[in-house]
């Protein structure tokens, strides 16, 4: 076994180098692509976005994204492209109504359409733009940094989202969703735009480097094996339920069995 290890490690290294190069290329491309887009293309995209917005969103948010305060529809003048990308591609927007918390549904827009609406909303004012991969994708983090991500998550997020991101309840029927399936990009965008009841975590408070640590922690803590069935990862309530059902329930069945047996059976 021990002789084969170096070989495997070398293979691993090669794969890593390959992945890193590809990753780097992607980052470089992502970094330069928007910049190489011409002004004309941009205007075209905004016009397309404006049309899409008028058809799908203006009924609530108004043609110029001014919102409808009395209906609880927020203005979109300074929310930025990131907010649109987050809301639309997680399937929250267009919302079915203005009353309840928008529930993620299937996103029916293409990536281009989403980008167009985002560009249009971004043109209305300021706000965080759509992030590049190097802003949220964790790579090359040390164990210490990932553990620090855990501390950051428990300090800033677990009050609403639970200790491993299983989700939790807020007042008035609002829920903080389960984060175990959420993409790293959406974690970044949620933090920067603060959807619904969630506060905004601006880069001054939690810089991108720390967002990556949080993303990495969430990924790893949910990928590791649990010590048996995790009973939903909800903490002591589900444990208590199981103690009664699986524990006492089974033992009572055994007690019945033992006492229905005669002296010899």
């Amino acid at each position, binding site marked *: 076994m021990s002789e084969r290890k170096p070989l495997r490690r070398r293979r691993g290294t090669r794969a890593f180098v390959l992945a890193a190069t590809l990753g780097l290329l992607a980052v470089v491309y992502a970094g330069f692509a928007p910049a190489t887009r011409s002004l004309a293309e941009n205007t075209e995209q905004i016009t397309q976005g404006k049309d899409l917005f008028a058809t799908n969103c203006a009924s609530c948010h108004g043609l110029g994204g001014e919102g409808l305060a009395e209906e609880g529809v927020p203005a979109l003048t300074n929310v930025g492209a990131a907010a649109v990308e987050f809301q639309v591609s997680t399937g929250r927007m267009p919302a079915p109504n203005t009353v309840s918390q928008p529930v993620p549904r299937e996103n029916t827009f293409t990536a281009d359409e989403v980008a167009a609406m985002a560009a249009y909303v971004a043109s209305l004012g300021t706000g965080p733009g759509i992030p590049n991969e190097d802003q949220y994708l964790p790579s090359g983090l040390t*164990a*210490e940094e*990932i*553990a*620090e991500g*855990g*501390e950051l998550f*428990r*300090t800033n997020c*677990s*009050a*609403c989202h*639970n*200790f491993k991101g*299983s*989700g*939790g*309840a*807020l*007042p*008035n*029927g609002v*829920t903080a969703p389960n984060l175990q399936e959420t993409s790293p990009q959406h974690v970044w965008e949620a933090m920067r735009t603060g959807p619904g009841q969630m506060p905004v975590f601006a880069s001054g408070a939690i810089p991108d480097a720390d967002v990556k640590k949080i993303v990495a*922690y969430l990924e*790893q*803590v949910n990928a*590791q094996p*649990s*010590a*048996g*069935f*995790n*009973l939903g*990862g*909800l*903490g*002591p*309530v*589900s*444990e*208590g339920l*199981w*103690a*009664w059902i*699986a*524990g*006492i329930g*089974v*033992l*009572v069945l*055994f*007690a*019945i069995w*033992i*006492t*229905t*047996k*005669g*002296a*010899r059976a």
Partner: protein
Amino acid sequence: MAKPTKIREDSPALAVQTPPEAPPAVNKLAPAAEWVDQRSGIGKVIKGALRKIFPDHWSFLLGEIALYSFIILLLTGVFLTLWFKPSMGEVEYSGSYELMRNIPMSEAFASTLNISFDVRGGLLMRQIHHWAAMLFVAAMTIHMLRVFFTGAFRKPRELNWIIGVGLLSIGLIEGFAGYSLPDDLLSGTGLRFVDGSIRSIPIIGTWVEFFVFGGEFPGELIIPRLYMVHILLVPGLLLGLISAHMALLVYHKHTQWPGPGRTQKNVVGYPLFPVYAAKAGGFFFIVFGVTTLMGALMQINPVWLYGPYNPSQVTAGSQPDWYMGFVEGAIRIMPNWEWHLGSTTWSWNIFIPFVGLMGLLFTGLALYPFIEAWVTGDKSEHHLLDRPRNAPNRTAFGVACMTCYGMFWAAGGNDIIATQFHVSLNDVTYFMRVAVFVAPVIAFIVTKRICLSLQRRDAETVLHGSPTGVIVRSPDGGYTEAHTPVSQGEAYTLTRHPQWTPVESGGRVRQRLSRWFAHGQIAKPTAEDIEAASHHAHPISPVDAAADETASIGSGKDAE
């Protein structure tokens, strides 16, 4: 129905056996046994104990689940003490769980991670210990319910009932202390909860808080102190009380279900040796096995996910173990009542649900046998159990209390209910505020009606026999179900219970309560009723005497 277990005619327990020859092993031990006996007189005691009779019914094994899980707790607990460090001194984690690398934490938490990840078998032991703790309290609770609903708490067993209440209450303290030891985020949050509750005690609250924590929360003393409580003080008390509980049990002898041949003066069942010992011993291994399987297959208290306690953190799903859930729930749904008098704050919003509710529960439990005896005026000894239906008001009251407890308990998980069932947290809370008062009333009415219906059916059965499932068509076209008369034994069992008669003496309150307690019961059929009914009956088969399998088994006087 409580019938003794059937025994086959060829069962060796009943057969007269003469062993061919005493096995040689016994012969070799005989001189040693005699030596001990001559010096301690133990032989007589053991002989008596081995012939001690135990009645057999599944509900009599519930207390045993508690006893056995306590033993499992002692065994696994000793294992954990070998590695646990009860210290709040701060260290940086350097063990093998990567997601905590270099995080500052207390030594208590670090050693818990160490037991979980670096001590062989440590995680399994932790999980068995925790599951056993949950089962210990749960088993005590259902054991207590069994004692309550069967009236086993009545004279002469009131004292043992009070010991039981003591066991249950310090069982909660033991569990809470254990839950706090690892110093993870949930245990710290739980301690903070208790800290706030202590502070809510008027006048002396703050002083008591400083006394318990040795200064401001959390201080550096609480973990070492709780450790002492958890591994020495409370287990010692539990052991002492359990011994007293068992001693009284042997002294009073076990209660039994009513039935032919079972009187207030005897006990019908199996002798301790060999039958009952085999059953009870086997059951110990079953409890141990189930607990071990739970520890091996079901994750419990994953402290590495909660992280070390940090007063600036809190997590959704912060709840105590189940047995503190009702207090948690009471605090969650309590309206925010607070007085500000001068410079003082009176936190009724915490004091009432915490100190008030727990005080009410345990005082009520301890006093119940005396209250009931006062209401019924019953001063006689009871060694035969009540079938719950035959004490409809007690049973309905018990179910109402369970329902109230259950509502508080559910309220403790209001956030989990909200997320799992997609309802609003506020709606759950408002609902529970009403439900803790209304649901018990509904439960009382429903339970009492069920009890009375069952009583009516019993009376029917005695008078007209039990339904056979055979439908008979009469010559004029009518259909009736044929009934077969019940055996004398069964009729006896169904009519043995006393009728409640209200007390005539005492104050107005007592008389009214007493009338209420006796009210609504279904009169049992008298001998004349049965006689009269038997002339109308059309049995399709004669009473089969052999079908009466309730003939006493191992019957006889309990060995002295």
